[in-house]
């Protein structure tokens, strides 16, 4: 329940405020991704995948959309599973998810021959987005997961 509220709040915040900011170097943090990572960190891989899928469908439905339905459902399912499973410690998990999500999104878009993936500006903007997301990550993940972010047994 709390997870659902957090996801919807993050999505609305992302679409109405964050995406409209003009920050230096362009690009903005991806709050929705960070919330999915945080929730999955706290609840494990199965719940992470389910919440990731639900979030992805919402992201695909919330206007303005000009992409195919299901694209972000796929991406966030993988991210939720990965974050829930954990990859050598919460910090590395967050970093890996933040880096992997846009690449995965680009790969899925490439799969359906979306002309936007080929544009050169993508290579420029993805690192900027990743850096902003990583900067915001400690705050958002802590807010969502709190101390429940599981310590992964080595």
């Amino acid at each position: 329940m709390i997870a659902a509220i957090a996801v919807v709040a993050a999505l609305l915040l992302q679409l109405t405020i964050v995406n409209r900011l003009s920050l230096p170097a362009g690009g903005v943090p991806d709050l929705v991704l960070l919330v999915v990572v945080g929730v999955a960190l706290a609840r494990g891989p199965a719940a992470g995948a389910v919440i990731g899928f639900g979030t992805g469908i919402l992201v695909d439905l919330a206007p303005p959309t000009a992409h195919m339905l299901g694209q972000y459902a796929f991406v966030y399912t993988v991210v939720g599973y990965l974050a829930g499973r954990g990859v050598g410690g919460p910090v590395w998990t967050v970093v890996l998810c933040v880096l992997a999500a846009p690449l995965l999104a680009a790969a899925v878009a490439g799969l359906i021959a979306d002309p936007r993936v080929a544009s050169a500006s993508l290579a420029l903007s993805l690192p900027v987005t990743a850096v902003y997301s990583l900067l915001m990550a400690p705050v958002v993940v802590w807010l969502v997961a709190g101390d429940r972010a599981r310590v992964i047994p080595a």
Partner: protein
Amino acid sequence: MRDTRRARLILGLLLTAALVVLTIDHRTGVSSPLGPARGVGASLFGTAEQVVTGITRPVGEFVSAVANSTSAQRRIEELEGQNARLRADLAASALDKARSAELRRLIGTSQRGGFTVVTASVIARRGHPGFEDAVEIDAGTDDGVRPEMTVVNADGLVGRVVQATARTSTVVLLSDPASSAGARLEGGNEIGVINGVGEYGRLVRFRLLDSTAQLTPGTRIVSFGSQRGVPYVPGVPIGVIEQVEATPGELTRIAYARPFANLSGLDVVGVVVAAPKRDPRDAVLPIRDGQR
């Protein structure tokens, strides 16, 4: 045991579901059976976005003002000249005044071209991580907005409507890499195609179809218009050519143009609900040695 078989099964099922939805939506295009779901989602989230924007507009404007303070530093001399006027504006609630001035300019522009516009405000934006450049505006089918209508602001072409619900609609911007529009050089009949290249709307690519035609920086371009004005009406100013690429031996010439409309900071826009009876040609372009 964190990585159970159950978790993997769920992962597999969900990924399959996502791919199936994606495939259905991709293959069926406009007649997608998922259209109703998208409509419901659009109206629910559109309304929510409208409410949230209503509450948070001042906050967002404050944050973006702070974020832009470094570049503002450079313009401080220029700003000092305008200080007196700004102070007066501030006293009388600068925000509303600026928006109403923008609205007045928009109406003036559309009258010059003979367009009939429905005015709207931007309530949400999709930039990254969507790769697409689209905004949500607070006017919908109730106001007469339909898909494939041209969207302009006081300065020039902004984009086109791709989806409209009762009270909100989605606009794909000129800077979206998947959008393209017919364009014409001012004062002539040379035509070409405008493509977005991302870059946050700073530049768009202009491909001139006749490789022997003159193409110099500083030339302005207007929209050429589509058949029956769908999705683009003719005569809307698009931008000014900034650099011309040397493409020897190619059939078309490529240039980059700076759009008149500030696509990264949109607020008041207008949806052209009725195209002019005759092509306004270059009439909507601002006078060259004017104040702008």
